[in-house]
């Protein structure tokens, strides 16, 4: 599987020169709510890149083959397929509006010519089959060329249909609909390494599904208290281990991560491992718990580590050590003195995601002002870059950005007070084998590559 082997994975985020490659989406000043990108995911080979948006639509891009006649196209991503995955619903029984927003997309490993992905909104997960058709049958016996059925009794002679080439057509069909298993809002889906099952997690429960079976799912984690008044924490993210099909982790709004082993019992309410960084009680404030809430958890490709994102930092944990993380990287520590206003405008509840590069030597996560951060785990260097149309000339190098926390602002630095908190980069993805990254900036998708690529 991907990871350590990964085709000569070069050094991580910073010895590289990141360059603009492409940007997708409209330049409109007024962004329609439906166009806001809500998830980004590369396929296992990296040749497909899927996005989901608040309008329930999925757009899949495909990487062009290197083409001698168009050398500058250099592996660009172009639209391959687009479809409406989810639609808005109203649950009349519970008086609940169900958004069509795609919360997560996860690709299935490739097993045939067709491609499969799981997409989910708050309540329903769907398995989509994306297949190509480039041939058409001509000379059928029971059908006209325009598809009208012939009366069988009118057929006097039989002929063998011929397959003729046609323009490539990419079709997306929903093959399974996994519904009615979640009372609360689904925040995560994760495909198991057994390629047969997957998990879906909501605020209080995690369910296990078989990809072939839609009318049954097994509950494996349930943290709902008998008395809802006693509720103190919710599940924020969950993921299966990349190699051990019996292991999963889930994070909580209190900054803890629990690792569960499905072999130990059918209901994994008791964790096998409990990861929590000890907190200095004297530094506790009103905001402590809120900013410690883990918004994303991701295993490394190797399966040895996992990474968690809380409001101000990214932490890398060794699965063998529960007492504290092995690495802590500050994303935007300068926001600590802005927590009051970030609480008032709800930004403190923003859920940032994080991702590993193919060989686990670097990690990336987003911030505000369309900034995103990369940390190289080997050199311990970090860089802040910006996704902006101002720097969108083909192959233009991205200049590192700096935020000035206080005091005298140097030239080229951005002061904390002039950061645009409406420009959030919540979703980013890193190609599984190469240094290509996809960054979602509200309604635009940026693709950056390293110069050597």
């Amino acid at each position, binding site marked *: 599987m991907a990871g350590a082997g990964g085709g000569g994975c070069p050094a991580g985020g910073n010895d590289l020169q990141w360059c603009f490659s492409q940007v997708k989406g*409209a330049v409109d000043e007024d962004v329609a709510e*439906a166009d806001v990108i809500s998830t980004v995911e590369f396929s296992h080979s990296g040749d497909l890149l899927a996005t989901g948006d608040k309008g329930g639509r999925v757009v899949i891009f495909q990487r062009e083959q290197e083409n001698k006649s168009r050398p500058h196209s250099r592996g660009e991503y172009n*639209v391959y397929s687009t479809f409406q995955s989810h639609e*808005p619903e109203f649950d009349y029984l519970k*008086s609940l509006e169900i*958004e069509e927003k795609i919360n997560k997309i996860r690709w299935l490993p490739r097993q045939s010519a067709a491609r499969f992905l799981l997409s989910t909104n708050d309540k329903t997960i769907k398995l989509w089959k994306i297949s190509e058709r480039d041939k058409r049958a001509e000379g059928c016996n029971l059908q006209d060329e325009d598809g009208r059925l012939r009366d069988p009794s009118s057929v006097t002679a039989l002929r063998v249909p011929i397959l003729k080439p046609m323009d490539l057509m990419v079709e997306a069909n929903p093959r399974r609909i996994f519904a009615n298993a979640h009372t609360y809002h689904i925040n995560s889906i994760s495909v198991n390494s057994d390629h047969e099952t997957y998990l879906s997690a909501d605020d209080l429960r995690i369910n296990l599904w078989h990809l072939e079976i839609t009318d049954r799912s097994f509950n494996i984690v349930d943290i709902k208290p008998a008395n*809802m008044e006693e509720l103190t*924490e919710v599940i924020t993210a969950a993921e299966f281990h990349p190699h051990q099909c019996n292991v999963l982790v889930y994070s909580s709004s209190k900054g803890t991560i629990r690792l569960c082993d499905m072999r130990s019992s059918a209901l994994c309410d008791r964790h096998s491992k409990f990861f929590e960084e000890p907190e200095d009680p004297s530094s506790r404030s009103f905001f402590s718990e809120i900013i410690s809430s883990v918004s994303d958890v991701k295993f490394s490709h190797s399966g040895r580590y996992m990474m968690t994102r809380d409001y101000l930092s990214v932490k890398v944990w060794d699965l063998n050590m529960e007492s504290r993380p092995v690495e802590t990287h500050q994303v935007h520590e300068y926001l600590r003195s802005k927590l009051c206003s970030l609480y008032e405008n709800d930004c403190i509840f923003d859920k940032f995601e994080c991702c590993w590069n193919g060989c686990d030597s670097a990690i990336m996560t987003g911030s505000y002002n369309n900034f995103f951060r990369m940390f190289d785990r080997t050199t311990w260097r970090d860089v802040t870059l910006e996704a902006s149309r101002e720097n969108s000339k083909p192959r233009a190098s991205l200049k590192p950005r700096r935020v000035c926390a206080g005091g005298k602002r140097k030239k080229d630095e951005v002061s904390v007070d002039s950061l645009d908190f409406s420009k959030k980069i919540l979703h980013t993805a890193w190609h599984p084998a190469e240094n290509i990254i996809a960054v979602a900036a509200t309604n635009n998708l940026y693709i950056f590559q390293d110069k050597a690529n």
Partner: protein
Amino acid sequence: MSQKQEEENPAEETGEEKQDTQEKEGMLPERAEEAKLKAKYPSLGQKPGGSDFLMKRLQKGQKYFDSGDYNMAKAKMKNKQLPSAGPDKNLVTGDHIPTPQDLPQRKSSLVTSKLAGGQVE
């Protein structure tokens, strides 16, 4: 007293004292922010991560429309116009009886994403 000592012998500040000062400085921004918030909202509870906050998160998407209330209100005001929602259309609870006009219309969902249209750069 101890502060005076520090001033007289700044070079002899012990490692521990130095650390205390640094910790205090690190703590200050968050505590200062907390004080700001409490000043603005004095009724803010002690446990921010407690029940109320989490319940709000779990109840996202809840819309309130009672057809019984609606029909009773309609019957009461046969000859008058039904009151329409105030500026905040999302909060149709409490005294205001929501009307079908108040509820969000089912959005047209068949518009192609702009990511799929337009130029390829």
